[in-house]
């Protein structure tokens, strides 16, 4: 490759890959990743708000923020009813993503495991869907004929890790490694057998690894025990992945621009904040019956005429106000909406942790975060303790804080900074790029193909 304009672009997505393991003082010995960084440029890549797989990959590949996409997480309100939550799959994304644009300019594309590509839509090339496909009995490839072809070549295509919530860590480790190898086997096959100008894959195993093994590998985690049998799992995994990346780089050839990116990072999780329990204690949420043990909020009978707010759990919190004329049994007069919202923001941000010290929560309004607010957003996005704490939606805990996960072992939360590495042949000698953000990736890819960046893409071209 002699110039910046590319004949081909290869994007390797590592969901949840954290800068500290690639660039920081804790970095592992990863010759292929580090060679790309040393030849080109690298930096941390600020995720979107919220820093979650869905919508993050769609933001990266469309150059649009979650508000423009109308997609605020994996599950979004379809309308203002109380039970109309739907999962955001490919059909929820109405904006063009880079492969749609490149396809329409006649470039051949291959997409492998990129979140929110199921149900598959035709592209000018080949597409293998992501873990949001219900199972491999579905039509998870485009064209349909690719499915038997791929399965003949690599065996079963693994959508994700099975039995993720388990204390049986040896088996889980095996399954996460198997997922990674399966994804790279598929990538090898497609790189070798399909003509492409743009190839993008996303490897989900890194995310599963971080959530399952963080406390075993990070000395900063409160539950870390030196000398535990899984202490080297992160290093082993990243190094195995780096070897597989090396195979792809050799196949792609020197005339290919290569990017290695992640949608968000990860960090130690201290515990969970039981947001609905807190809302009950503070008089915002009222249940008709006290649940018998831990119960999902969706399974509780909420006394809507006496409820002003309720919330969803996950790696971040989402709070919904019960507004008159908007929700079916809304109680907050529309004229009081802002007053109520500010009251709630103030209360959430004033929360103390179990040690009595301020948690440092942030409660954010979608209209302050995004250029446009489409779809049905939450009224607030909440980051507990700068994401040191997750949001627990279930009720029936002994207090506001929990150090167990209600869905099983999980030791990591997401972090705002992911990774960006690009070797575009300009021999920049490992220049660190500052101030990069997720939505810069799509304009950069289009620019590499010499295409005009649409005005409504919010990122900038990474030079």
């Amino acid at each position: 490759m002699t110039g910046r304009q590319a004949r081909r672009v290869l994007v390797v997505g590592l969901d949840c890959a954290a800068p500290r393991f690639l660039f920081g003082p804790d970095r592992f010995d990863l010759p292929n990743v580090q060679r790309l960084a040393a030849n080109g440029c690298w930096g941390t890549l600020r995720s979107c708000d919220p820093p979650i797989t869905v919508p993050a990959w769609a933001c990266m590949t469309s150059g649009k923020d979650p508000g423009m996409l109308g997609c605020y997480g994996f599950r979004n309100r379809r309308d203002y009813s109380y039970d109309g939550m739907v999962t955001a799959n490919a059909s929820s994304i109405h904006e063009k993503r880079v492969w749609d644009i490149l396809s329409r300019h006649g470039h051949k594309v291959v997409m492998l495991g990129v979140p929110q590509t199921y149900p598959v839509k035709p592209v000018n090339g080949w597409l293998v869907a992501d873990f949001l496909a219900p199972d491999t009995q579905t039509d998870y490839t485009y064209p349909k004929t690719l499915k038997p072809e791929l399965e003949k070549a690599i065996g079963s295509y693994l959508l994700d890790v099975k039995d993720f919530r388990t204390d049986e860590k040896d088996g889980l480790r095996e399954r996460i490694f198997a997922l990674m190898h399966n994804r790279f086997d598929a990538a090898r096959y497609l790189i070798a057998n399909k003509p492409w100008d743009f190839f993008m894959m996303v490897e989900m195993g890194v995310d599963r690894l971080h959530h399952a093994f963080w406390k075993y590998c990070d000395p900063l985690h409160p539950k870390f025990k030196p000398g535990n049998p899984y202490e080297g799992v992160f290093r082993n995994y990243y190094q195995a992945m780096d070897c597989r990346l090396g195979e792809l780089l050799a196949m792609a050839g020197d005339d290919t621009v290569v990017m290695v990116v992640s949608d968000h990072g990860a960090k130690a999780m201290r515990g969970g904040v039981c947001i609905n329990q807190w809302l009950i204690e503070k008089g915002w949420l009222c249940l008709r019956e006290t649940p018998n043990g831990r119960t999902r909020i969706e399974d509780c009978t909420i006394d809507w005429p006496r409820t002003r707010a309720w919330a969803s759990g996950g790696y971040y919190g989402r709070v919904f106000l019960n507004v008159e004329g908007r929700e079916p049994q809304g109680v907050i007069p529309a004229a009081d909406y802002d007053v109520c919202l500010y009251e709630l923001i103030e209360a959430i941000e004033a929360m103390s942790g179990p040690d009595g010290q301020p948690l440092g929560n942030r409660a954010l309004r979608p209209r302050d975060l995004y250029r446009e607010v489409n779809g049905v957003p939450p009224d607030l996005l909440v980051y507990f303790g700068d994401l040191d704490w997750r949001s627990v939606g279930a009720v029936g805990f002994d207090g506001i804080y929990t150090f167990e996960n209600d869905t099983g072992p999980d030791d990591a939360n997401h972090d705002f900074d992911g990774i960006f590495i690009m070797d575009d042949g300009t021999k920049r000698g490992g220049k660190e790029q500052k101030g990069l953000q997720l939505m810069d990736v799509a304009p950069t890819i289009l620019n590499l193909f010499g295409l005009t960046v649409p005005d409504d893409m919010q990122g900038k071209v990474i030079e």
Partner: protein
Amino acid sequence: MDKGAAICLRGAEAAEAAKALAIRLLEMGRNVERLDDDMLKRLGGVKRAAFVCGVLSRNGVFVVATARGIHAEGETLDVEIDGHDTPDFAAEKIIDSLAERGLLRLDAGQYTPEEEEVIRKRLADLGYVE
């Protein structure tokens, strides 16, 4: 009632693209009629065919036309098929154009209730949601 249109396809791969497009539109629950050279003959010529296209599209039907010489009345989309495109991808581009004109809603493809529950459980196991 949803609006229809006459979609006039041209190019060497037009017949294959028309077939793929008709299938996509039918899958989206829309009414479709094909208008090829044979149908044109049966209708008695281009003038009458153009009139029929107009009537059908006014009544919510998509007329996918590969017959030569058609200048349909009413809402019309003329498309030159790129010979490099697969029929499915050519159809996808036309679907996008129809959506941009407000003639189609691209909200198909959501999960069945059973699939939605499978995915919700998976996401809960993974910690993304509860």
